[in-house]
Structure formats: C-alpha cells, structure tokens
C-alpha cells in the first residue's frame, strides 16, 4: 500500500472509524457514503469500540507477499498466524489478525477486543503501517 493511501485510511486503521445510518441504525465498516438498507445519503461518522466475536478463522502458514513478490517481513516473522473474520458488536464484519494467543485457543464465537499493532513494516527504510488487530477477551 502506498504511503498516501495508508495515510488516507488512518482513521479506519487506527480508530475503527466507520459510518452509521441515523435513519435505520445500520452500521458500516469500512465507511460508505450511502446506506445500502434505506438509501440515506446522510450517514454519520461512528467510532467502533472494537468489541466483537470471531465468526470464522484460518491459520496462515505462508508469508504474505506484496504485489512485487517480496515477502512482507513482519508476516515472514510471525507465521503461523491467525486470520479471522470478526463481527463487531454493532454488526459489521472485518478481517483481522488474532494475536497473543495459541492457535488452539481460538474458537468460533469467542469474544475479542481490538488492539493497536504494527501491520506492515516494509524493510528498514519504509513507513511503518499501524492498525487494528484483535485479542481474545480473557
């Protein structure tokens, strides 16, 4: 991801900023301009507090490559890692890594909370991209 694209998305990555439809109470993450339920164009900004549950998950055992075919270093170091679809309390689902737990601790339906972590650190010269991951609520 380019630096400028990452910068534009910082509110979502750092603060889980999405949208809420004040007409029908639908929530969106990532944010969108028009409510897909009622067609309302005047959606409000909503900060998700990051609580949710695991809908499904998989274990990644192959490091992620960037479009140029280079291994993204942070993932080369962390394999195997847990990638899950998390359903936030307000409803939206998102894909994120589950950290600070053993693979066999992760179960569908388990409660999770958002944490702030490094997502991509492309070499010693590149910008560090931070964002949300999740950990089990213990």
């Amino acid at each position, binding site marked *: 991801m380019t630096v400028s694209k990452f910068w534009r998305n910082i509110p979502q990555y750092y603060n889980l900023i999405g949208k809420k439809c004040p007409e029908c109470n639908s929530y969106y993450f990532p944010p969108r301009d028009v409510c897909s339920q009622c067609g309302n164009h005047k959606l409000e900004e909503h900060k998700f507090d990051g609580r949710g549950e695991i809908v499904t998950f998989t274990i990644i055992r192959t490091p992620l490559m960037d479009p140029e075919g280079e291994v993204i270093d942070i993932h080369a170091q962390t394999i195997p890692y847990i990638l899950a679809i998390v359903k936030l309390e307000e409803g939206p689902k998102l894909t994120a890594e589950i950290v600070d737990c053993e693979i066999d601790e992760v179960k569908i339906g388990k409660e999770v909370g958002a944490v702030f972590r*490094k997502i991509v650190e492309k070499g010693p010269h590149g910008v560090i991209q*931070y964002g949300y991951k999740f950990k089990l609520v213990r």
Partner: protein
Amino acid sequence: MTGIIGWGAYIPHYRIKAEEIAKAQGQDADTIKSGLRIEEKSVPGIDEDSATIAVEAAKNALKRANILPTEIGAIYLGSESHPYAVKPTGTIVAQAIGMSNNYTTADLEFACKAGTAALQIIYAMVKSDMIRYGLAGGIDTAQAAPGDPLEYTAAAGGAVFILGRENIVAEIKDTVSFTSDTPDFWRRAYQKYPSHGGAFTGEPAYFKHIINATELLLKKVNKKPTDYTYAIFHQPNGKFPVRVAKKLGFNNEQILPGLLVPKIGNTYSGSSILGLAAVLDIAKPGDTILVTSYGSGAGSDSFDIEVTDQILRIRNKSQSVQDYIDNIKYIDYATYLKYTKK
C-alpha cells in the same frame, strides 16, 4: 494544585525466564538470578514497538482520566526505542487515542529517565496554565546484544500519565533533578545495541545521581524518608534499587510494592514510572510517594507525590499493572530471537 488525573500501564504478553537466556549463553542461571535478582523479563510481540505500547497505556490512562482526548494539549513520550529516528512517536499515539490536531509534541530521549523527563515537562506546562491537560509517558522495547549481561534485563513496557489541575488523584507537590556528563551507558547513531561501562554504571552513575536527586528533593520539601508511604527508584536490576533505598534510609516495606524488575525486567524509560503506576494501583488517600528515576548519561529526576481521595473513584476503571504481570506466556530463546529481530 497540579497532578495526575489518570494513569495507564502496558506490559507485553510474552516472558522469557532467566534460565532460558542462561542456557543460550552457557551461564549458570542461579548465579545470574541471585546476582541480578531477576527471574524473568517481558518481551514485545513481533508486531509491538514503543508506539503500540504507548497507545495501549494511553488508552488505559484515558479510561481513568474521564476527559475527552481532544482536551489534551500536549503529549511527550520518552524512549530510547522510538520506532523512527525521524518522525515523532507522539503523533502516532495522539492520532490513535483520538486527540485533536491542536497539540504540541516532541519525542524525548534520556536513557532510562526519558519518561520522568516527559512528566516534568508536562507538569510544568499544566502548572503554568499553558495547557489544561497533558499526557506524559515512558515506554521502551529495550535492546541488548546477544551475550551481553543486559540481555537478562532489557525488557518492554511502559506507563502513561495524564496531568491536569482538577480531579487530581495524585498531586505532584515538587520535583528536582540532578544531572551530569557521565558516560556509563550509550548507543551511538546507527548502532543497534547499546554499549556500557560495566561496573562503572554503579557507584559514579546510578547511585551518585539517585542519591543526590533524592537528597535534593528531601531537603527542598523538608521531608525525611520515613515520611513516605512508598518509594520507587529506577530498576535496572533487582539489586540496585534495594541497595540505594537502604543507603537513603528507606525500608523494604516502602519499596517492594513498586519493585517490578524481578518479574518484568528493566523497561528502561518505563521502569520507575511503571513502579509508580503499580503503587497508584494500591495506594490509599493521603499516602505519600517518592519517585526517583535514573537515566544513563546521566541524570535523575525525583518527585514528591501525595495521593488524594479521588483515587478510589477511578482506580478500577482500567487494568492494573498486576493484571499485566499475571497474564503471560513464556517463550523459548529461539522465539525470543525472532520476536526481538536479533
């Protein structure tokens, strides 16, 4: 009155035992453990650094402070492991906790006392009415070369404090510093690991600066060691703070609640202020706390702090230091090398 209105700590989930490091270094674990008085140390996850640690600690401090993050006018963070050489950690943390753009920040570095240097700056800014609220913190993911004795103690963690003039839970009554040009420990530009003067880090460095700063403070506030409920001294290992406390006239009952190094290691810029956070987790209204940090290079900052009855209102709004000490996972030396990118 100026003081702490919220505090927050964060210590990573992972630990490595001294035995595991001793095995890799071909040393006798019992000799190391009794010499350094350390059992284990915290290790950052592969995706953690000083910015992520500061964000989690700051979020915990905000839960207690009961203010909007947009009301914070300054953020100063001390560390010797800022993620960037050029780009302030404070900007990342401010964005992540939801501060406005109307704030000032700069990264601080003064070995293990950069956190208390941040606390002094924010204290002065709040006291002078330049800002209403300010955030100060000390965090580190400390580095040590494989085979260096520092590897047994160099750890990760930090604490953050929000200061204000209303709803104070711990009043900072006074602070002094004692500073000199003493090259006991350093890291040159572009070097991955620090170097140090071995035993030279003791008497002319750690002990001289902590004793002088503490005695300057005691004289200034006209108090004696027995006037304090708790005392916290910088914790590079488990031996030095106990010895310096004894030299100054403090007893074990005063220092043990804030002595975290045997279980988490030396969190450098976070060390003495994590001790303060642990004491605030248990302190009662009216308790008095003395904190003296030490940073190689070298200097000490000493603080005279008094707990107010407001502390009971906010203490349980966030995780305690003990929560982070209890919730851990042990890793082996190979995993430790991977996580610390050695």
